[in-house]
């Protein structure tokens, strides 16, 4: 079915609160999904993929700060979706970069990482240059790099596979964020490296996609929409005769 951006955002917000997210996290999560979908970056598909995990997670379990110094922070997301309170890890990196000019933040053990792009747009709006980097799998090894220029509403995105990557047994379930106050950090492919360019999206591509989404609406599959609606319905209160009559004028409208 087709839905509007505002509908997807609104339904998402209510559904996330229904799951047990704090209000601020629900607002951010819904914005991330809708933002990604409107820019053609698969927000709805990512949510669909991660929703079953989300429903089994404890939304009140906060991420843990494993290490920090003035420039560098490492956090553990406990195998939770980035849609939860992981935005605070991003904000920690932002605060460090504001103080120090540059920061590196690593969030380990998190899912739905692609959705972080929707939140990074907030930081760019506040004047921060941001690059996010993560790896998706081992065979073939795929790297994704997203770069926001300060003040720009949309990023540039590179996705590529590496053909001759050195052996590496670390799990690819983390994300690294680099933020800089004063210099651009845009992704740029090195042509002399053995890689296959899978996707490169420019700012113009993403803005075109957004304009088209506003005209055409966003496609959401019925099953996911019904699931979100049933989660959102958890916030509704059963009606009673007194609640029904108390909310109106108490008089006939046949006048």
């Amino acid at each position, binding site marked *: 079915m087709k839905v*509007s*951006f505002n509908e997807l955002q609104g339904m998402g917000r209510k559904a996330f609160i229904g799951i047990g997210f704090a209000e601020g996290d629900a607002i951010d999560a819904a914005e991330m999904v809708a933002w990604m979908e409107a820019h053609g970056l698969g927000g709805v598909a990512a949510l669909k993929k991660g929703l079953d995990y989300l429903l089994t997670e404890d939304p009140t379990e906060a991420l843990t700060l494993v290490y920090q110094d003035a420039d560098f922070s490492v956090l553990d997301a406990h195998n939770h979706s980035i849609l939860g309170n992981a935005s605070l890890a991003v904000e920690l990196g*932002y605060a460090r970069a504001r103080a120090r000019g540059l920061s590196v933040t690593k969030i380990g053990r998190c899912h739905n990482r692609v959705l972080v792009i929707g939140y990074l747009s907030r930081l760019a709006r506040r004047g921060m240059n941001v690059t996010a980097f993560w790896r998706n799998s081992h065979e073939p090894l795929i790297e994704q790099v997203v770069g926001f220029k300060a003040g720009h509403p949309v990023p540039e995105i590179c996705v590529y596979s590496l053909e001759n990557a050195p052996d590496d047994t670390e799990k690819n379930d983390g994300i690294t964020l680099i933020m800089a106050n004063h210099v651009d950090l845009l992704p740029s492919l090195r042509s002399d490296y053995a890689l296959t360019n899978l996707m490169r999206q420019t700012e113009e591509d993403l803005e075109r996609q957004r304009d088209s989404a*506003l005209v055409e*609406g966003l496609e959401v599959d019925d099953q996911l929409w019904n699931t979100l609606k049933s989660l959102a319905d958890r916030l509704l209160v*059963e009606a009673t005769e007194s609640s029904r009559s108390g909310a109106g004028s108490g008089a006939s409208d*046949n*006048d």
Partner: protein
Amino acid sequence: MATQLDVQPQLKLRPASRVMNLVRLGSLHASRLSFSRSLVRQMAREDWTVTTVRSELDEQGHGAVIYRLQTPHHTYHGVMFSQHLEPERRSDRVIAEAWDVTFALVQGEVEDTLLEQMAANVPLQEAGRQHPRLLVLSRANKSLRNFDHFVEALALGHQPDPAWLTRVGYLYRTTAVYGNGKFGIADYARLQKNPDFNRPFSAQMFAVYLLRHFSIQQVEHLARVRSVDRAVGLAPALQRYLGIGNSTGLGMAPFLINHPQLIQQWVYCRERALAWAREQPPTVVSRLQLMTLLHRAHQHFVETVTEDGEQTQRNAATIVSIAAVIRWLDQMQATPNLWEELLDWADDYCSLEAQELINTLLIELYPDLIDAAENELGCEEILELQPEMRVAALKQMIESRFAWALDYDPKNPDHHYWFWYRSVEKEEPRLGVRSDEHGAEKELSLAIGPRIHRTYQLLDAFLDRSPRGSVVEFLMAHPGQKECVRRIQTMGATPYGEIQANLWHRGMKPMHLLRTKLSFFGASRFDPKSDRWVRVTLFQGAPLFCELFSDHGTDKERLAALDDWSFPVEPDSDLL
């Protein structure tokens, strides 16, 4: 682009503690910056034209009518579906499932396939899936007494008695006017680059204005059906005096609380206009203009009828106050301090509604400057976190900018008497008594005051442990506070950040919230039907489509005369 208002160096804005007081906000009137006024000015200035391209009303006035709107930039269509409605199904509540008229504003053409889709979905309103080219979706119910009286009178070759429109100023009242992506229609973001409808609620206001046009055509059609030989058209003065009603309840409250930056922008533009107006040197002409406006407003309130006891008293107080203002002003000369003296005098001797009425009328005197602000009434609603801020600075910000929120006393049951929630019945917003009714665990977080109070307490404890801590460190310890913190940080930087009231408080009156929003829409004739339900009138007195056409001239005087329709008074029946 900076407007003249921006370059005024030191405007004396009224303090937020005064302006954002809920009782004062609940005393506001429509002004020349209200959205309905602004829309009519734009239509006249830009020579918008409306033509009927399809009219298929049957002998009962049921069927479809399509209007074409041409602006300098785009083409739109208004599609109206009128149907028979059994009286037992007629309800103004959101829980209704059928209405006398349902309608939509469409961007572009209405092809047969789109019309078919709309015919199947628009009458269902929330229960339908609407097309993304619809900009506005709405519905309305008849004012049965007025409607029947008008058809009967016109069919007999008479003009209806204007007193009917003074009692109830419309033939139809809308019960919801949806925009911004609701039920599949276009997002507001789509309109942001569209000069026709990029102001807040301007597309919705146009749809309501079009309904007014339809209502006139429909009663004239029915009168002709009843008596083709004797029927007459509605007199132009009555057409002008005819508005469109709106019936609304608690649904407006969540919007006000969930769009604090937009509300700040609306209030800021109005307050800036007032601050500028009061600094202008009064002249003999402007003093007389104000007297004229006061006389008309006085008559408007003398004629205004409501069954609500409290609003009747408020109207009576306004009438007494305005009469006193007229007497006072009559004795005064146009000295340089006249406006300041008038406002000081009004503070001492006038009711709250009358004080705000004087402010509204002062703004009327300076259109050249003030109308520029109408392009600044919109904004993107984004609450931003400042994670690097020191917790001590955030605490200080609460103390200096949100002191009103710290008045909340968790130990006092009256301070958390109400809770707000959405009912399972079409998600209708409702109020419950916390100690008596179930559902408080699912309440909507609309009471900003108590939330800020809670944040303040947590900040206080955190500061004991981490005197140099940052906001992000505080939030890592209290992640649930993120939304409240970024709201404090964002709104704390604005002059009119928040409605300063505890929405849980036993003494809180939801009617003030409704009136706040409705006044910016341009509503008049506030007619409460309970403590949380109100009927109002929009566009009463506004010029008609046929009067807006540039064939009549586009000189400044004519446009100013077209714009002068606030606080309308009953037309003389002998002159119809």
